[in-house]
């Protein structure tokens, strides 16, 4: 498997706070890679650096061999990296179908192509994916009327509609009804296996991430503490210390 995303020595500070110090990480193409760490360890900062939300202070981020650390958010997205948010971001005033219709890939879009209406094929795909995440019955509701968990599912479906090569998921199961979590994990795996989308997942739910990821990175205090298979990470005393606060 070739490396799709290559993060090398990335540092990011906010004023005096070092959020990421010399962080390196590899995401092989086609994999599901996990990113864990206690609250405030710099996971979301790393996501923001990859997605182009803010510039990094030093280091390099390469996607499919191209340096992307200087690109802005929409440019990164058009290369095929889509991220979801910890707090949901959906188009609240639009119904679910319209949320999906506008989430098609935008790399080839011109003003002219935007003047046409959504095609039947696009709408069909939108409905399929809404069905895939279990929101078909809610498709005509404004996204703002959905519950938090349902909005997360919609956001996931929108990300799939965008057909990214790499999907960055920031705590996909947080706030989701425990009953639905197994179904969501199953869908993440299917998106990976059937649609060929590489996943990089931030997750606090250990059962979920151990079950999902083939390789896990653990951040603590902005530095990469450990990496390895789920079993290695689970048994690593440093990881246990970082979570339980032992010295």
């Amino acid at each position, binding site marked *: 498997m070739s490396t799709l995303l290559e993060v090398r020595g990335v540092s990011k500070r906010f004023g005096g706070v070092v959020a990421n110090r010399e962080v390196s990480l590899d995401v092989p193409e086609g994999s599901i890679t996990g990113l864990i760490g206690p609250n405030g360890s710099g996971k979301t900062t790393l996501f923001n650096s990859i*997605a182009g939300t803010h510039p990094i202070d030093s280091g390099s981020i390469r996607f499919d061999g191209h340096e992307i650390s200087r690109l*802005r*958010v*929409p440019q990164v*997205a*058009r290369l095929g990296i*889509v*991220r979801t*948010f910890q707090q949901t*971001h*959906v*188009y*609240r*005033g*639009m119904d679910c179908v*319209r*949320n999906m*219709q*506008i*989430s098609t*890939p*935008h*790399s080839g*879009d011109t*003003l002219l*192509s*935007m*003047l*046409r*209406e*959504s095609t039947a094929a696009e709408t069909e795909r939108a409905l399929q994916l809404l069905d895939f995440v279990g929101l078909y019955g809610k498709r005509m509701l404004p*996204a703002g009327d959905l519950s938090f968990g349902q909005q997360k599912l919609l956001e996931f479906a*929108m990300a799939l509609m*965008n057909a990214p090569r790499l999907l960055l998921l920031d705590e996909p199961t947080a706030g989701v009804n425990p009953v639905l979590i197994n179904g969501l994990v199953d869908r993440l795996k299917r998106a990976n296996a059937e649609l060929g989308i590489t996943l990089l997942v931030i997750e606090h739910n250990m059962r979920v991430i151990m079950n999902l990821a083939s390789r896990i990175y653990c951040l603590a205090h902005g530095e990469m503490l450990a990496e390895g298979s789920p079993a290695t990470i689970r048994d690593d005393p440093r990881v246990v210390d970082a979570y339980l606060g032992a010295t």
Partner: protein
Amino acid sequence: MRKSGRGVAAAIAVAVTGLALPWIVPSITTQAAFLWLMILFSLTWDINGGQMGYNSFGNVFFFGVGVYACALVQRDSGLSYYAGLGAGIGAGALAAALSALVLGPAMLAIRGHYFAIATLGLSIVAANVASAWEYIGAASGIAAPLFPGAIGDRAKFFYYLLFALAVLTFLLVRRLYRSRLGLAINAIRDDEDKAEAMGLHTTRYKVFAWSIAALLLGAAGGPVGNLVGFIDPNDLAFAGATFGVWMVLMAVLGGKGTLWGPVIGAVVFHVTQELFWTWLLGWQRVAMGLLIVVIVVFFPTGILGWVARRRTTAA
């Protein structure tokens, strides 16, 4: 099926009323012409205000650019009346759209209330520049050239021009909202960060949508300047305190972010305003102010929003 039937009925009703009005009640032709202008104002305002979430208090700037561009072409081009008017309207539309293309990338990068304040500044600056610039008549303004036809035909002629422009505007924005660009500007309104994260060319779409509004406002400037006959920089072209604010109010009153809301809002607002002038002379501005308060307090989601809410609570 029933819905499209209703649309056809509405279209026929509007067409018949619009075409027949100057013949049925010729005495109000000018006021009726201004009704179509108000509809154009609120429809174009709603493109960015209602559908895109960028509340502009400066869209009257584009109207003023159109007014002046047309007047200057008519004054200086040496063309015959109708040719000069046609060229002037075209020039007005282009000049307004170009200014939106130039100003857009910088101004539309400002979000929320700051955008509203920046656009407010735009129309104030324009009014002051126009009042001081000798070439365009400074504070004494420009007089429109004499209409060559019969005296009674002048108002009718410009009435039909504005009627045609309002209908064109309605058809254009309806098409726009059905397109993927319509979805994109709605997405920008609801969550611009998300739209960026999904790879939308947000700046491009915002500037383009604003330019369409500017194009139509600029085109309307010429006919209005000629209908009124005298172009004052503060009272007509860059009338921020009247036209500039009314655009916002009419769209809010009818229901912003909807297709028909701005039309309904403009009709209700304009008719009410004309009635105030007729029946409450001397108090019309007080009544206007009260009406604005009533709109904002009791119809925050507009007439259409109010109707929709009553319907859902009734059902």
